[in-house]
């Protein structure tokens, strides 16, 4: 299970902004809206995928994020095909 924690819309993201500012000097152009976030991977014992997802969501909201500034969402652990 993977929990993604991102800053809420409108909350300042100094880390993302600093990385973005540094990019042109490193030869990366055309990159914008850089946002830094956190992710947590874990194994959850549960009867079903939906039960696991529910558990992860509750974990995400109660422990892994601060809802005042962050959004959290849980997803199943397979890599999204690219």
């Amino acid at each position, binding site marked *: 299970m993977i929990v993604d924690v991102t800053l809420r819309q*409108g*909350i*300042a*993201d*100094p880390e993302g902004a*600093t990385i973005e*500012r540094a990019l042109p000097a490193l030869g990366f152009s055309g990159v914008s809206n850089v946002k830094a976030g956190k992710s947590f991977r874990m194994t959850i014992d549960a009867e079903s995928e939906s039960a696991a997802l529910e558990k992860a969501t509750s974990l995400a909201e109660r422990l892994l994020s*601060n809802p*005042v*500034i962050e959004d959290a969402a849980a997803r199943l652990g397979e890599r999204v095909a690219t």
Partner: protein
Amino acid sequence: MSSPPQSLHRALGLSDDELDDIKTVLGRDPNHLELALFGVMWSEHCSYKSSRLHLRRLPTTAPHVLVGPGENAGVIDAGDGIAVAIRIESHNHPSAIEPYQGAATGVGGILRDVFTMGARPLAVMDPLFFGELTDARQRWLVEGVVSGISGYGNSVGVPTIGGELTFDDCYRSNPLVNVLCVGALPKERLVLGVASGVGNLAVLLGSRTGRDGIGGVSVLASAGFSGEDGAASIDDAKRPSVQVGDPYEEKRLIEACLELLDGGLVVGIQDLGGAGLVCATSETAARGGVGMDVDVTAVPLREPGLVPFEIMTSESQERMLAIITPENLDAVRALCDKWEVRAAVVGRVVAPLSRRDGTTQGMLRIRNGFDGEVLAEVPASALADEAPLYDRPRERPSTLDQVRADDPTFDEPVGSPNDDLLDLLVDPVWVYRQYDSQLFLNTVVGPGRDAALLRLAGPGLPSSTRGIALSTDSNPRWCALDPRNGTALTVFEGVANLACVGAKPKAVVNCLNFGNPEHPEVMWQLSESIDGMADACVALEIPVIGGNVSLYNESGGSDIDPTPVIGLLGVVDELVAPPPGWNWREGNVLVLVGAQRADGERPFPLGGSRWATKRGRRGGVVEGVDPVALLLTLDFVVAEIGSICAGAASDVTAVHDVSGGGLATALAEMVAATGVGAEVVELDGHAELFSEFPGRFVMATSDVEALEERARAAGVLTTRLGVSQGERLRVGSMIDLSVTQIASRRRDALEEALATLN
């Protein structure tokens, strides 16, 4: 300019009377934007409307005061061509909602107040107050606040050298996070937040503006939390978008601003704090007696769609407003580019309007484009200085006599004094270990002792061998019982802390954390507390050069205990050797120096002591201290320790003032620090062990007759307490503990308490 609906002013925190005042000032109805500007500027937080009347009673002058209260920071002349700036502020309400960012932005804000004066910030202190450590939420608050201060302070590159740490359930939903900053500057670089020179430009430096804390600090800090659990109930409209601190931006801003000042490129400079741009522009204009045109469209935004009201009142962090001449614009831009600091011309200084009576009035005009539509037009001084002044009703709490009568001083002790003593020992090392306390190579005494002591040195300062000492103190339990006496004793305690590092007090700053001023009992507490501070400062001849008032610290209708935090700044004239600290050696004689008993009916009062509070006993009487004896004692200790700092040989090997936890705690702390035990005479029961009244010092000496002789000559009382030796602390028949037991308990108490809460 359409006029707003009836209730808009109330939603903005303005009373009906205040709306009438605004109409009188303007001679017409305000529009929405104007009303919003008044709403934030006339909030309690920005205008001090409930406290200003009382603050006037504080003594604020002395020959060495260069800048007193009212500016961004107070400034004294510390000698050798160096001026020292100091300021304290609260960030209580934001920290209750998001402890990390609340505390972090508190540090950021206080630094800006200091470098605004042209001073390089050299040190921070952080008095903190939480509920008892009994649940995971308090732990979350403690860890969040401490890591916020650590995360911001360390990264921005200013050492945190001390603070306070108090746990009491009155702070359960209302943690207090106060931050003090001290900085230094070559005397001639002193600048003030003044706009002048018609045609000059107002340049906004630093971060882009977002919807951070709109109406935030100002509105939040001007209304209590309604529900039981502060954070849970603030969900609604009052919840601002939380401000996020960026220490890296602030670091570049500090360096850029100091370079601008060194280069003589600015006329005036002002930080953006509570109430953001409207506050910075109206205050600078008001101080300079000029008008200012602000172009809201010129303000760099972090996100699209902000309306003028949001732009003007946003509390986005890490921004400064510099007033410069147009000729310097290119140079300012070049310097800002070097530091990667954004610089945008957002305003112009304009001539004040002439009024019929021959006086002039500087107008703050908010415009849509420099030559565009005028969105708001109000007298700058009306916003900045002319908020209504309230003499709110005051009333001595009706329960106070009863509470005072319930005095724990004569309680029969239950259990063993050994356990009582162990229970009182807490080293906040878990907190201050997270703070860089040594940057700039000035820290002679860091956190964990009586006062912090710094060399008075820093980049760009004239050379000096002086030192500055700092202490923050509070005693809410005393102040709940007797705000006047309690606050005076708190000042005395701070001065005693300075004496332990050989420093003479030069200035006081204070942060008055109180409950809801609309409660007459709270106003009485505030007024009494201010009088107590004034009395103590007059007696000691110390000017109060700055402060901050944080009101509405209440939740669920109950107010915190009155919590005046006293910050003291002292100077050591010659600092070439460290003060002796707590490290006595084997075989020293231990002497109690100063008053032997309190000045009242109770020789060893326990009302408001930590010993009594631990037992749930919150009543009693706070006795006074004889100021004459206190002054003699302080002078004596300062002379003794000051001479050691100046490099002289001395028989004095250790010194520590008696404060929280009383004499027994002071002895145990010294035992823990040195690893050498002590054999101490019988004392007058648990009251003498644990009574906290200030003005007493434990000194250790290798030549007791010589010390006693010097004390006698100075008119200071001494008694022999015993001898430092062995591996146990024994006090008469009452205390018998091993050195390791004391040391490990003291070191681990806080960390263990936190670890049990998951």
